[in-house]
């Protein structure tokens, strides 16, 4: 089992969710986040004062998958989120030792599905 964390552009979220759906990956947690990377972004201006070094809005997806679904999930995120512009985001993958479904108490592969 792997835990996939993807940080993407907010405007790519719908596309990424659609691609994940196509690969039959339904389990996903989405949060609004702010952060910064190499992207400079658009400076906001308030009464002539430019906001400098402000954090950029991103969307974070967390997807827990069985090993067989790791590659399809990565492909779905990249297909949906990639524009070729700086700031498209990143995908992090970490090992997931355990997963438990609260309702039934099922564990591991059974629980993720």
């Amino acid at each position, binding site marked *: 089992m792997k835990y996939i964390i993807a940080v993407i552009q907010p405007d790519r979220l719908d596309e990424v969710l659609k691609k994940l759906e196509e690969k039959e990956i339904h389990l996903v947690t989405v949060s609004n986040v702010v952060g910064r990377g190499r992207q400079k972004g658009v400076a*906001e*201006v*308030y*009464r*002539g*004062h430019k*906001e*400098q*070094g*402000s954090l950029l809005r991103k969307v974070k997806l967390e997807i827990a998958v069985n090993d067989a679904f790791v590659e399809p999930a990565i492909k779905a995120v990249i297909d949906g989120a990639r524009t070729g512009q700086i700031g498209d985001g990143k995908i992090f993958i970490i090992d997931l030792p355990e997963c438990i479904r609260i309702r039934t108490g099922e564990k591991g592969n059974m629980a993720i599905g």
Partner: protein
Amino acid sequence: MKITLAIAAVVLLTAGTGICETQQLVSAGSLTSQNSTIDTGDTAWVLMSAALVMLMTPGLAFFYGGLVRRKNMLSVLMQCFMALCIISIQWVVCGYSLSFGPNIHGIIGGLDWTFLTNVGMTPNATYAPTIPHEVFMMFQMMFAVITPALILGAFAERMKFSAFVIFILLWATIVYDPVTHWLWGDGGFLKNMGALDFAGGAVVHINAGMTALAAALVLGKRQGYPNGISPPHNLPFAALGAGLLWFGWFGFNAGSALKASGLAGNAFAVTHIAGAVAGVTWSVLDWLRYKKPTTLGMITGAVAGLAAVTPASGYVTPIGAICIGMGAGIFPWLVVTCLKTKLGYDDSLDAFGVHGIGGIWGVLATGLWATKAINPDGADGLFYGNPLQLWIQAKAVLFTMIYSFVMGYVLLKFVDVVIKLRVSEHEERVGLDLTQHREAAYTIID
């Protein structure tokens, strides 16, 4: 406890005498012999206008509140609402009397009307012959409330709440009331000089704006200013507040006719025109200089235009209002977007830049575009063949600017010495909502 005592002391000090005279209020109110002079239309309009002006203070709270950071939202709302409550009390106790009471050397009103003694249901022929005196008093109360609230734009996000309360009580009594008497009180020296201030360009906007500048200087910058300050936390609130201000401004200016008359109608029209023109002007300048027209710029321009037309609204034509609106888009824009950053003072929400500069422009512009064709009781301005009026207006501007700045500065320093104006560094970082009020504006979890 110390704070409670201090507030009580201030109230008592400012109250002077008169609590025993409240009995006369009742007897004066029960005089019915002059009721025939009351005009129901005028009274209805001024009652409505007082309510409109009252709504401007909560409107201002949202206008300012939207511009601060999340952690300071409640502190702004609280300061505005506390101004509404406490200045209303001050007005009843002594403020109205000091502003409009029997004249003392053109400088200040006497204490004859403290606790609204002799302010009853019959009209006061000098100020408003066709409406109850009490209605005039309430209409003016709303002006007294919003003026100190305007100042908080300069010291938002860093002033102790206790210091705020004591400061606005002192300021209302020592700065607002005399300046109101100078321009509007019977026998006020600037009024006698012929200065025109229809609805409060000097009394409200220059007055608040100059003390705001003093406050920005006395308190110093917020931590992290200018680069480490987060953007406005809720611009939709600011837009809502600006909308409420605009709405209330019809009461502010058209209500200042104190009649439901043609003059009120003209004031209504020129108020709206100047606000609209200034909003467009500010947007165009933003568009040219910063590539995009901004929401904040648009609403700021509108407020500056409404502030600028305030002193002129009873004297100028729609064409005059267009010119005043354009100036109100240009001069405050220059000060707020260019000059402030260069000079480096932290007028957090531009109380000086918008209201001070807008007010100065408006009072001077009244000396340019005023015409007796609109108001025979007014005067002609420079463009109508009377350059002297501009000079009179300039003197009114100077007197108000100097008095308001100097006294504002002195009072702030005084409060600073007594109980300290500014919150600690830690409290400023945590935010005023939590440290001053033990509340949070927004929950994160349902």
